[in-house]
């Protein structure tokens, strides 16, 4: 495996694009971010002990921004989202540390009653499985209208009228005729549109999309992504888009956070990340995308697997699978530091982004 960084000369254009994106992001820094997660730790009880499924996760989401969180299954993407929603299953899981600042308040400190007012109203979430995320015994019209009448002081008729508008906005064909249909009369793509309508009913400021297109056909995926992008622009909301599909990331995200074993290993504007993935994990992840424009014999794979939650190694959690492993990697925990020449590109790696060295390895 070839060592070291991406080609430095031939990506000048992409890099300047990255810079443009960066300055755009900086321009928005004048207003406070809509969401700021700081040192989030979420633990789960497995085999008698509490283990961190999400460790020391920090990021911000600006107004109108889409942050993609990528990573393989079990890396803590969904747990991060559930922590923001306050939906970590009580009893088996808990937010053990950190703060989640939203709308001037720390969501971690809010009680269930206050959190309930925020959920579905100011922060919404859509899920991976459209086939099972709608109640089979209630009509879709009822389910969309319910979200409205619950959070807004709306009468039945007004809620139904608004729900119909929403269903038309998410492009359900013949929405009026299908208003009283049950979920099983809809296809997966249509059900996901209904879910989106429910999530957006109260015009939330932040939408968490947990792999919303993973269960759909590729063509339907593209339609749903386009719809989400359109609605996001129309509603002026921020979005956290969780996925393991890097192709989707490229098309929808402004910034990307790559997670591995419960930690953010790299976070950067989307163009920057695709142009020079710096953490070895991100680099390998990008290399494992099938591409039609490159003539290669096969896909590269990342050998090994994510360490079990109860058996996290000391030092870098990726060290065991890392081609660049150095002795320090298995001794001390790396920290997330900005690259010297790109202050909004943070990497957690001793080899590629050693703190204080002032140069890239």
């Amino acid at each position, binding site marked *: 495996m070839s060592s070291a960084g991406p080609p430095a000369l031939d990506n000048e254009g992409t890099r300047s694009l990255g810079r443009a994106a960066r300055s755009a992001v900086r321009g928005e820094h004048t207003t406070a971010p809509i969401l700021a997660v700081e040192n989030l730790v979420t633990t789960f009880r497995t085999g008698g002990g509490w283990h961190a499924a999400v460790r020391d996760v920090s990021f911000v989401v600006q107004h109108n921004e889409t942050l993609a969180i990528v990573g393989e299954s079990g890396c803590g993407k969904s747990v991060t989202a559930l922590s923001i929603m306050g939906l970590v299953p009580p009893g088996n899981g808990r937010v053990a540390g950190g703060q989640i600042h939203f709308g001037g308040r720390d969501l971690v400190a809010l009680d269930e009653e206050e959190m309930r007012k925020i959920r579905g109203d100011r922060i919404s979430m859509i899920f991976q499985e459209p086939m099972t995320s709608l109640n089979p015994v209630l009509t879709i019209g009822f389910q969309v209208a319910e979200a409205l009448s*619950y959070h807004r002081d709306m009468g039945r008729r007004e809620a139904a009228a608004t729900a119909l508008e929403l269903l038309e906005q998410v492009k359900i064909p013949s929405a009026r005729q299908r208003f009283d249909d049950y979920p099983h009369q809809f296809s997966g793509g249509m059900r996901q549109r209904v879910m989106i309508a429910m999530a957006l009913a109260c015009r939330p400021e932040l939408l968490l999309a947990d792999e919303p297109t993973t269960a759909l056909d590729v063509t339907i995926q593209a339609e749903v992504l386009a719809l989400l992008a359109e609605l996001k622009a129309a509603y002026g909301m921020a979005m956290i888009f969780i996925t393991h599909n890097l192709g989707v990331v490229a098309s929808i995200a402004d910034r990307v956070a790559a997670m591995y074993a419960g930690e953010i290993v790299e976070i950067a504007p989307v163009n920057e990340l695709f142009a020079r993935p710096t953490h070895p994990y991100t680099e390998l992840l990008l290399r494992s995308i099938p591409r039609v424009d490159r003539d290669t014999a096969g896909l590269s794979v990342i050998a090994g697997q994510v360490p079990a939650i109860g058996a996290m190694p000391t030092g870098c959690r990726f060290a065991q699978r890392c081609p660049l492993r150095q002795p320090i990697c298995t001794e001390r925990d790396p920290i997330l530091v900005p690259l010297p020449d790109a202050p909004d590109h943070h990497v957690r790696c001793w080899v590629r982004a050693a703190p204080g060295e002032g140069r890239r390895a």
Partner: protein
Amino acid sequence: MSDVSVVSGGPRASSYALQQLARAFNANATSWIGLVTFLLVVALALLAPLISPYDPLDQDILARLQGPSAAHWFGTDSYGRDILSRLLWGARLSLVISTVSILAAVVIGGIIGILAGYIGGRFDMVVMQAMDVLLSFPSLIMGLMVVAMLGASMGNLMIAIALTAIAPFARIARAPTILVKERDYIEACRALGYSDLRIMAIHILPNIVAEILVMASLWLATAIRIEASLSFIGLGVRPPTATWGGMIREGFENILDSASLSVFPSLAILLVVFSLNMLGDGLRDAIDPKLRGGE
């Protein structure tokens, strides 16, 4: 189903659960026989004031303990009262007592079961163990206890029957609740900020109501049997009011003189219990595999 809109034809039932029940019904002939028989009995009971040939309380001492005849189709009892008329009027009482008591048990037991299944944990354990204690009393013992404490009356009879039926309904409501609350759409409800009460009442209840209705039809039969048993041992509605259990008891005392006195009310109970069981069994067979797997 395709993405292209398909406007489904025909009128829609207002509730999906009822659609399920209707589908199960059509798939099963015995449930139709059961339903028709039961509805016939209900109709006869409702029409009792119009169709019964005599007043159920009118005594005719000269015509006591007669067998079936043209004047008295089912014969007369020891006071010379017309058995057919008393059967028809007794049906009203038996049906009211069993329906009201089972309705109470469905509501109370259903609420307990949904709460226990939804909340889970220690609450579930304590509540369901209390239900097990309730379940361990045979219905007759429960009836004896209630009547001994509160006295024999129609109301107390209903309390006794409801008490025996609450625990089974709590169980039948709890099991599907535990299944349903793990479904994705309940998680989606939480993500929309819905309260637990709303999730239970609007999102879980309609999913389990079909199973509860099936159970209710079976327990209606049991309630009629319990009512008859308690009346038979003298803990039911007081004479001279006609109830089926009370009539069997009177007939039992004169069984050597006139068998028809106890035979006809027994047959009436048999008919109703049998029809309700056919109805409930047919529904359960048809509905189980479909509902359990979800849609």
